[in-house]
């Protein structure tokens, strides 16, 4: 006769004693108390999962975003000359799946040293943040690393027209009211 014996069904002496002394109840109590105790003396560091209190008081403190977070768009400037890096190649607008970018440009004669070249020059750049889905395809398409999605996420505005960011806003960024605790 095959003997079927499950060891999982038999309690060891240790388990019996644990049951008698209501070990599990006290284990739970110890856990919650340790959290309570740490909450009282630990220095608060919002958004840190290793801390006893995770809460970040967002409007009072800056909220933490992850490194790969994609938020408000920005047009980068050449740090030396202060001119825009954009060459008006329209690749970003072509890459955009929701068509939220409009690049306006003119052909103009530009003097470079002794030569005079006919070049495309950026005039206007309109970025509709209400339609943008922050996929980062535009940024990846950009050959000069000009268009970039930053980590800023406070994009709310009072009127729909505010969602259409023009070139100036994209280059300078919006003036946020910065809160501090």
């Amino acid at each position, binding site marked *: 006769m095959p003997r*079927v014996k499950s060891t999982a069904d038999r309690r060891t002496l240790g388990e019996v004693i644990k049951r008698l002394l209501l070990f599990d109840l006290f284990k739970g109590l110890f856990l919650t108390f340790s959290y309570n105790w740490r909450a009282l003396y630990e220095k608060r560091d919002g958004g840190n999962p290793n801390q006893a209190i995770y809460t970040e008081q967002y409007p009072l403190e800056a909220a933490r975003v992850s490194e790969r977070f994609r938020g408000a768009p920005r047009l980068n400037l050449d740090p030396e000359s202060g001119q825009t890096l954009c060459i008006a190649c329209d690749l970003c607008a072509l890459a955009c799946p929701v068509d939220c970018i409009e690049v306006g440009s003119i052909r103009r004669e530009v003097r470079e040293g002794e030569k005079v070249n006919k070049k495309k020059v950026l005039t206007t750049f309109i970025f509709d943040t209400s339609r943008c889905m922050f996929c980062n395809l535009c940024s990846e398409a950009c050959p000069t690393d000009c268009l970039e999605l930053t980590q800023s996420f406070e994009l709310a505005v009072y009127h729909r027209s505010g969602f259409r960011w023009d070139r100036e806003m994209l280059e300078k960024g919006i003036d946020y009211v910065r809160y501090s605790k």
Partner: protein
Amino acid sequence: MLGTLTTLMLVAPEWVLRWTKEPRGNAFWAEFVVWPLIQILIVLFIVLTLVAYLVYLERKVSAFMQARLGPMRVGPWGLLQPAADGLKLLLKEDIIPLKADKTVFQIAPIISVVAALVVLAVIPWGAAWATIANVNIGLLFILAVSSVGVLGLVLAGWASNSKYSLLGALRSSAQMISYEIGMGLSIIGALMFARTLSMSGIIEAQQADGVWYVFFQPIGFIIYLVCALGETNRAPFDLPEAESELVAGYHTEYSGFRWALFFMAEYTSMLVTSAIAVTLFLGGWSFPGLGLIKNQTLFVVVSIVIFAAKVMVLIYLYMWFRWTWPRYRYDQLMDLGWKWMIPAGLANIVLTGIWYVLALPKSRGGVFGLMQLGLRDRLAPTRWSGIIYFVVTGFVITIPIIWLVLAAINRRTRDFNLHAQRQLQIKLRAKRLQKHAEPQAAGEGAS
């Protein structure tokens, strides 16, 4: 309800006699009218403020246990939150359901809160003048009046004309009545030692014996704590207002300040049950070394602070339990009340009685003679041997015996014992396997 009536009937004649016989001079008015009124106002003000801040404390404690911050926006660290909440509740619309029993609906929360607040009169907040009324049946009065609280819940559930309310009220009435028995049984052990029902008398008895009764009555204390949780409808026994099942239980239909009254009643009764536990088992306002203070006023103030500190420790314990343990299922709740708490309480009474009788002086039929006549002809355990005897019997003998009793009572039959059932299934499977294997083996042998 019956309890209150009886209490009133017991107390009323004495009041009437006093009123008619004693001269009603200025001293009378000062002693029986003006001074109690001042005390009542102070106690009510402090307790109601405290209750509001208990809500704040509960929110903070729960937040800390759940890695949150809790209320932070109203005032520094959210300290003005109770005021904001109170104001909000006052200004909210008072909704009475169309088909509700209007009068009963309005009276129910009042009954609930009054039953909780009346009890405050006999609680010894501190030594001497810090107690409002030193009634010689204080404890009986508390038990009688606090049992009226359940009437408020039942009426609220009935009058709301809503299924959730009615189910909540049903649950609460069954639960509170069950746990009241266990609660009543748990305090008798301590009363055997105190030999009085007066709340101040119990504290004085503990002072005279030189030990808190929690050391004589560990089982009684544990039963009291558990039953108090059930009695105040707090987690893990918050079945009457289980939000996942009953929306909000008996106060589903209540809004605004009527709801706040129920809330107040809950927290006040929490305070009251903690205060009784402190009085009965933790020595009330007494503390080792308190007698060193010679200044009378300072002595009283310190005694009040000590009492409050002990009560707060117990209240923290309640909150700690609430935010740690999950809610009991309804049959488990009843099981715990009837099959664990009540037998344990009864066994505790019997065992304490045996230890008590054995320790009586030999002239009174005892064996060990570890007690002596103390203040007011009260038998007290002798200074060290008596105390050690009762502590040892309480911890070393009573606890294992009661554990065995409970184990015998709660030994489950096979129908309910999952462990036994699993073993049975395994055996049956083995048999089936055997039957299946045998004919095959026979067939192989033939060919």
